[in-house]
């Protein structure tokens, strides 16, 4: 795996890009504009609201030629987009938390209909307790529904990934909806220097739009979309199985496509992001911690300090969470002796973080036992500081010699 730096510009020199200062939500909106969707449907919810406000303003100012639907709720937001996608439109929306929960009925269906809708999740913790702050609980809760989910670390990555998400979703080997997850509060409102790709270059990158070649509601090629399928007789069982299997194949195909498109992005725009799994200072590491999203910045600082202090520690960051990049992750874990996994959400059934739980599944395939433990932090807008990561590093280091705890460590419990 490659590392996330600006160190390797492509042979063909990328065009000079405009530099601006903006928050993550605005970066997402700018990414959407560059991708030229036909329709954006919106319903405001904290901490997503400024994102759709930016989109609305871009449209109002004529900087983005898209139809905007101010729907009466998230359920209709996604439904409107499904209709537009079936009619051939490129579509986008954003939501989070309770909005995503309300959207769940059409959300479940989007991947089954193989509609390449792109949706940002400005991640927010789940209620109750009532909360309007960041956390991955919303996106994690819907992780098993057939959407591709990509988690961003920086504001720049939010912008770039938002554009790439359309191309991933619409790839004919994928044809699945994509969530671009950006952490509520930290990325949504975090202001940062961003390079803005040129429209012409993005147009060249995106190619020709063709989003409903496989399923359409079009009088020029009439078909029944989603007839009653399944049951125990006739063609039912095999037809249903082929639908489901196709979805799973699309998910697996996306692992390759995500890598290819990130590579193309790097070639064209000079920024290379690890598509699936990022390794940070993993060379020579005996043990490692795993992170997701914006917490990685603080984690990398803690790793640097630990390395300086002589600890043989490295970092593994997931960008692609769904589909779970098992092979890529196993490759990164090849020399790792102990693993600490930090989640910003809760897996209630296993009493651990969801990423930890998923990773345990991958570890089973490793063929050797690695002691591991789950850390849960940053819930409902709480900080995970460099200090917290030092605690994570220390606890993970102890796994090398001591017993592994079965309980998760709740990082902010005593803050």
């Amino acid at each position, binding site marked *: 795996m490659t590392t996330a730096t600006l160190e390797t510009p492509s042979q063909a020199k990328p065009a000079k890009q405009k530099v601006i200062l903006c928050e993550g939500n605005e970066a997402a909106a700018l990414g959407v504009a560059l991708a030229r969707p036909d329709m954006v449907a919106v319903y405001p919810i904290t901490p997503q609201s400024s994102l759709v406000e930016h989109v609305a303003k871009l449209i109002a100012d004529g900087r983005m030629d898209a139809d905007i639907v101010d729907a009466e709720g998230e359920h209709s937001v996604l439904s409107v987009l*499904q209709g537009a996608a*079936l009619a051939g439109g490129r579509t986008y929306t954003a939501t989070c938390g309770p909005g995503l929960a309300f959207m769940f009925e059409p959300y479940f269906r989007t991947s089954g209909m193989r509609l390449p809708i792109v949706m940002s999740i400005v991640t927010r913790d789940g209620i109750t307790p009532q909360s309007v702050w960041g956390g991955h609980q919303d996106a994690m809760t819907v992780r098993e529904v057939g959407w591709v989910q990509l988690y961003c670390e920086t504001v720049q990555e939010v912008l770039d990934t938002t554009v790439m998400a359309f191309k991933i979703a619409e790839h004919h080997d994928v044809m699945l909806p994509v969530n671009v997850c950006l952490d509520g509060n930290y990325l949504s409102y975090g202001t940062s220097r961003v390079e803005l790709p040129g429209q012409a270059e993005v147009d060249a990158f995106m190619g020709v739009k063709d989003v409903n070649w496989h399923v359409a509601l079009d009088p020029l090629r009439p078909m029944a979309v989603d007839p*009653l399928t399944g049951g125990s007789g006739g063609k039912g069982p095999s037809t249903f199985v082929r639908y489901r299997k196709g979805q799973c194949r699309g998910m697996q195909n996306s692992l390759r496509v995500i890598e290819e498109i990130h590579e193309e992005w790097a070639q064209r725009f000079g920024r290379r992001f690890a598509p699936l799994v990022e390794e940070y200072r993993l060379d020579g590491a005996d043990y490692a911690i795993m992170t997701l999203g914006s917490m990685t910045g603080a984690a990398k600082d803690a790793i640097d300090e630990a390395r300086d202090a002589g600890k043989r520690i490295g970092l593994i960051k997931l960008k692609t969470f769904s589909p779970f990049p098992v092979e890529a992750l196993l490759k990164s874990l090849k020399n790792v002796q102990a693993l600490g996994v930090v989640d910003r959400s809760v897996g209630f059934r296993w009493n651990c973080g969801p990423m930890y739980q998923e990773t345990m599944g991958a570890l089973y395939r490793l063929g050797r036992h690695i002691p591991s433990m789950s850390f849960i932090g940053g819930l409902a807008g709480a900080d995970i500081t460099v200090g917290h990561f030092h605690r994570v590093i220390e606890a993970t280091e102890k796994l090398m010699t001591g017993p592994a705890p079965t309980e998760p460590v709740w990082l902010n419990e005593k803050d």
Partner: protein
Amino acid sequence: MGRSYNTIAFDAAKCDGCGDCMTACATAKVGVGDTARSRIQVVGSADDGFELALCRQCGDPKCVTVCPAGALTKDGTSGVIDWSAAKCVDCLLCTVGCAYAGIALDAGTGHVAKCDTCAGAPACVPACPHDALTYITTSRIYNEVGDWEDLFAPGLAGCQGCNTELLMRHTLRRVGPDTVLATPPGCVPGMGSVGFNGTTGTKVPVFHPLLTNTAAMLAGIKRQYKRVGREVTALAIAGDGGASDVGFQSLSGAAERNEQILFMVVDNEGYMNTGMQRSSCTPYGAWTSTTPIGEGSRGIPSQGKTQDAKNLPLIMVNHRCEYVATASTAYMEDLYDKLDKAIQASKVGFAYLHVYSPCTTGWRFPTDQNMEVARKAVETNFVMLWEYTPGEGLRFTRPVDDPLPVTEYLKAMGRFRHLSPDQISHIQGKVVENLAFVKQMVHRASV
């Protein structure tokens, strides 16, 4: 071949033999009220009932075939059998050919005379003081519909006697092939309109939306086609449950945004496709499988639904939709008129058409009684037929000034069989109240 024509219909039960129709006819045709010279003749008696001797404008007219002079011809456009004075030779053979006494000698002229429907405005019809005569003009619809392509597959699997298939086929024929059809879960897709396991039941693009998001999905479709400059009708044929209950939010949202959708609700007053459960459109007192009849507990018997129906079309009026109307398959001409207006309205905004659809299975009445039940609903004012536009306000399209008692409607079906006198008087009271309420809206529109 196969044309349908307007016709004068006679309801023997309403005729008292007064002869006003004959006077009107004779006056219109020969200038004097001599009933013997009328071309419509009331025959029979008060004891045995009355009948008409009147030209039936037969499709295979014997009078025409036996005329040696070519004086009688069936007009292919109006369907009327025309008599030519210039060609007639007064031979009377036509009177021998007709078995219905529809053409006879007029002693005043020495020529035969027959009904010519007064060129489409028969004088006899308005003259009848008992509404025993009606001029049925729905033929236009059937002729036109016959020329349009049926866009559903043959053999949809509806319940016997259900009017929904009729409604679906007529609607889609009228709306035409440049349509995307949404049929949310319910009887309409249950009949097979979206097909099964990869088949389709429709010749236009059709889909199952969720029960909850029909209007929203259609909005997306319509907007996308508009964006690329294509004229496509976004049509929903939805059930009452999906529209008034769980789908109401998206319906209301789309109506508020004035999305260019034609949204038709087939109101069978419950979740009939899934086994006849109660919806918010189920009327008070009705048996459904979730408002069953039983002894109850604490001394309170269970006697059907305990709340009145939600009046969804009136709620849609309050969205100030481009067009809102109620309709019934017992009044197809009215329905078609509204369908045409709704189609036009849907080109500029949200058009909502609420069609009452008696459910033979769920309402428990014989399968041949669908139209009769639908008609009784209107004749008792249980259902009111009206239309609304923001410009013209609300108006009755078939006002019933002298309604039958609501029991005439209730007794037509099994779901109301258990009603107590109190329940019946509650329903009758609601009919009166609803009428007054709608009348008030009509009044408001007129000031």
